[in-house]
């Protein structure tokens, strides 16, 4: 059974029929537990909306969404069910500043478990553990404005980890960070997926980040445009460019070379194998 299952889900922000522009159109999607999925799409493609549907920040106009086999779109879902869903599916947003609530780092990480009514000694344990996971233990008593963007985003992640979720959605969590901050956060995300077996949905428009996932889903105008492993998806260079998306630089290079009739594989994603192929060509 898939961890997340969406059946014919549609959604639009304006409910009146005149301005009814669907943001999500009839999406069918299954995500397995423990997978690392990158969701790509240009601005306004509906990728963030898709994420917000999964933890009940938004509710679909039609269609069914199942989390762990539970129908979260059924009419008799209670308030408690909503909180259980939000505990299971954590979400990290774009702006690190606007997610931190407390003036002290460890107080902020405790916010989620405190809301869930976890016992104090257990909260303490979880906070220490979450800080260690993101490698920020020595900043426990600092305040948020003393940290860099990447550090703040790692604190936001720690705040979600402390809730012990099964899945974390990263809604463009790296887009406001500088390259080194982005690197820190990506390593943390990857580690959570590999070591803690947390299902990761990483919404991004940075191709080099999507390459690190097990599966890439490309959303265009509220529909699934491409879906597959990174090498499958990125070999469709022309299609991706037609919907306004880039491909990783190395893939683009391979694509341009193959256009000239030279036989090279297009599904190359990392610099190392690209360099090897170029070396062979030039010998």
């Amino acid at each position, binding site marked *: 059974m898939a961890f997340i299952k969406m059946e014919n889900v549609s959604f639009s922000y304006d409910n009146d029929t005149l301005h009814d522009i669907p943001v999500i159109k009839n999406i069918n999607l299954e995500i397995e537990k423990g997978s690392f999925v990158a969701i790509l799409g240009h601005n306004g493609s509906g990728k963030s909306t898709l994420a917000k549907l999964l933890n009940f920040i938004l509710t679909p106009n039609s269609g069914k969404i199942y989390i762990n086999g539970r129908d979260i779109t059924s009419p008799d879902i209670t308030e408690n069910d909503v909180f259980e869903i939000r505990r299971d599916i954590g979400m990290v947003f774009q702006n690190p500043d606007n997610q931190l609530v407390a*003036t002290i780092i460890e107080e902020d990480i405790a*916010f989620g478990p405190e809301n869930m009514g976890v016992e104090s000694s257990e909260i303490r344990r979880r906070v220490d553990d979450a800080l260690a996971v993101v490698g920020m233990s020595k900043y426990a008593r600092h305040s948020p404005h003393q940290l860099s963007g990447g550090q703040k985003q790692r604190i936001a992640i720690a705040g979600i980890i402390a*809730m012990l979720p099964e899945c974390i959605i990263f809604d463009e969590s790296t887009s406001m960070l500088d390259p080194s901050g982005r690197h820190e956060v990506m390593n943390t995300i990857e580690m959570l997926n590999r070591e803690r077996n947390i299902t990761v949905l990483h919404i991004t428009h940075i191709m080099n980040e999507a390459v690190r996932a097990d599966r890439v889903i490309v959303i265009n105008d509220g529909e699934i445009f491409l879906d597959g492993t990174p090498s499958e998806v990125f070999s469709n260079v022309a299609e991706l460019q037609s919907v306004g998306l880039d491909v990783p630089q190395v893939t683009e290079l391979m694509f341009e070379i193959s256009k000239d009739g030279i036989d090279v594989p297009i599904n190359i994603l990392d610099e190392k194998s690209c360099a090897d192929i170029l070396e062979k060509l030039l010998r």
Partner: protein
Amino acid sequence: MLKDITLGQFFPGDSILHKLDPRTKIILTLLYITSIFLATSVSGYIYIMLYTGLLVFISRIPIKIIVKGLRPLIVIIAFTAIINILWTKGEVLMVDFYFINIYLEGIMYALLMIIRITSLLAGTSVILTYTTSPIALTDGLERLLAPLKSIHLPVHEFAMMMTIALRFIPTLIEETDKIMNAQKARGADFSTGSLTKRAKALIPILIPLFISAFRRADELSTAMECRCYRGGDNRTRMTVLRMRPADFITIALLAMSCIITILLNINFPIYKI
């Protein structure tokens, strides 16, 4: 320039006053203020001065900082003193110069007012603001006022608002700085011209600041919802405040102080007002 603003007036330290439970300190502040207003004779005031001095001493806050804290109030203190000297009528006339009549009682009353205001300020800041971090203060307030929840006062919501405000002050200051620099880069002038002109120049700063604050509020509330926030009900806390023997002892001591000031008023009514 805006970076220099310090948040609250908290001076970290590990004196006895620093270590007390914030709830205790709020109660102590109330007791302290009560005892100051109970003192109505010279003996009472001398006693208050002595024990304010003792509080300052045990807080280990440098006198310089306390004096600095009093500085903004010099005008008010001087004004009160002058009014008291000139307008208090008494029996012992000291100066009789045309329409200016200064009585001994007036001078004494002015002195007592000065002592009252300065010790009020020094004492409360030493007990509360200088030795308690803002977050501990809101925590203490929330827990102290918790019984009021039963009459449907939004105690938790109030404390949450305080926490968020404290959290976002540095963020918004940084943002103001950024907006100001952006406007300056486009030729805006904030430092010259008449008062109205300078006030008008602030409008292009305030509007983007407000818009961004609303956007932040919206994003923050979504993020809080995602972290299972649903108000104060069923909420637990990581750090549980515990009253220790020292807390009860200090409360008892200050309560005794109130009684002492009353007794001094009755038994040594020198210049009782």
